[in-house]
């Protein structure tokens, strides 16, 4: 589903964000991308979205070889993904319903389809009652649910979330994570970049740990840190 082959990413200012990174995420996987701040998590996600180009190596997503994807084909490619960000990134002048609807409008979906899919997505994230509210009238957790509904509504095969719980309190974070897990159980591949050790440890999913641009661990049913190391550092 997502494959990195010896990827090097060097930003134009000389920062080497990723150094020889290779991994493979299978269809239907739930993968955590963990690591300290500045380790390169967001860079990996940007490469998956083709927002940035790798300096070396190649990236494959959903069967596309991103290095041969033309600029004109990017919108189409991105519609096969769903994206969720730490800061929600909802359109402030649109209601909850319109925000989700918008993701379908850009695909030129049939109005009939839109009227069917949008309420379904909102129901899935438990926000049917707030359909006519504006983003600034919602709590952070609710806004993130809207973002998840928007990411889901086009039935993407892959959902990418960059610190989706970064702005939320622990309880709400759990709810959002459970929601993402539910989405995953419906068959969507999920990649979540996060700092939240407690969540990663509890959920026992595929974990890719990264540090200073290099993969230090890639483990099925893993934890945030190695248990041995964990017990040493923990106080």
């Amino acid at each position, binding site marked *: 589903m997502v494959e990195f082959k010896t990827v090097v990413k060097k930003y134009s200012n000389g920062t080497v964000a990723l150094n020889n990174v290779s991994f493979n995420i299978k269809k239907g996987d739930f993968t955590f991308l963990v690591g300290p701040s500045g380790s390169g998590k967001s860079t990996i996600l940007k490469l998956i*979205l083709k*927002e940035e180009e790798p300096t070396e190596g190649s990236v494959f997503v959903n069967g596309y070889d991103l290095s041969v994807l033309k600029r004109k084909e990017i*919108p*189409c*490619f*991105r*519609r096969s*993904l769903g*994206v969720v960000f730490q800061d929600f*990134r*909802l*359109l*402030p*002048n649109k209601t909850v319903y319109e925000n989700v609807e*918008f*993701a379908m*409008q*850009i*695909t*030129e979906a049939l*109005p009939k389809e839109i009227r069917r899919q949008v309420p379904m997505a909102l129901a899935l994230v438990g926000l049917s009652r707030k359909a006519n509210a504006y983003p600034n009238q919602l709590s952070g957790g609710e806004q993130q649910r809207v973002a998840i509904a*928007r990411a889901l509504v086009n039935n993407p095969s892959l959902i990418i979330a960059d610190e989706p719980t970064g702005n939320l309190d622990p309880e709400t974070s759990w709810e959002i994570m459970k929601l993402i897990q539910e989405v995953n159980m419906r068959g969507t591949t999920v990649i979540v970049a996060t700092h939240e050790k407690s969540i990663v440890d509890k959920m026992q999913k595929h974990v890719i740990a990264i540090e200073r641009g290099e993969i230090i661990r890639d483990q099925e049913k893993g934890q945030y840190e190695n248990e041995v190391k964990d017990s040493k550092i923990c106080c």
Partner: protein
Amino acid sequence: MKLRTAKFVVKEGFVNTYRNVLMSLASMGIVAASLVILGFFWIITVNIKYNTQFLKDQPEMQIFCNPEMDGHQLGMLEWTIGRDKRIKEYEKVDKKQAFEKAKEMLGDDKDVLEGLDESFMPVSFIIKLNNSADYGEVVEKYKNYPGVDSVRYSKKAIDYINRILRGLQIGSSLLIAILVVIAVFIIANTIKLTVFARRKEISIMKYIGATDWFIRLPFIVEGIIIGLIGAFVSFLALFIIYKLGGGWVQNDFIMVKLVGMKDVAFQLIMVSCLLGSLVGASGSIISIRKYLRV
């Protein structure tokens, strides 16, 4: 593009214009002002052309014969003129007509002609050329023709007016070009502000897979709305200026006859709208270019 997408895009354009109502109004004002200046020059050009038309209708050239010229020579001259390929048409002014004309021109002073008859008046030919560039050759040929006294031509006056008209045209084209550039620049800046305010929205749209055109079109619609409303306002302003100013001009300068507003209105509004929407659209395209690279 599908119809529902077009609808969506147009609706977004209107909503955005309304949302930035102050900036939109400012841009509309600037477009309107530019178009008023532009239209003003255009109307002046049209009127000058209209008022100098009669000069072009005047005889380009008149060949005066000696009053003593005999009938045979006259016949030869007329025959030559009639066969000259450079001459489009000619009109013979005989002694009697010339006498009448002289009397007419003298008006109240016509008693100077008391006791005289038409015999001292010259016969003349009013000539129109096919191509005014030939006038030098033609003048040269007939000036020395036996029995011809002189050849007069109003070529200089025509040249002069043509030169003024051309100057005015070049001047107004230049002015139009400058005004258009200024208007595009100002609209581009207005829309740049709205684009800047909405750059986050644009990047969100790009993330969820909107195409460049899908993002661009509402802004272009916004530019066109601004341009069209500006054009309409400028048209109204010009209409009023022309109505009020026109009466004043015609009272004080009896010579000047103005082109009716009805005759220019259609052209004016078409040109204004075309320019307005072009200016608006190009302003948008310029300002959004940078933000599409995500």
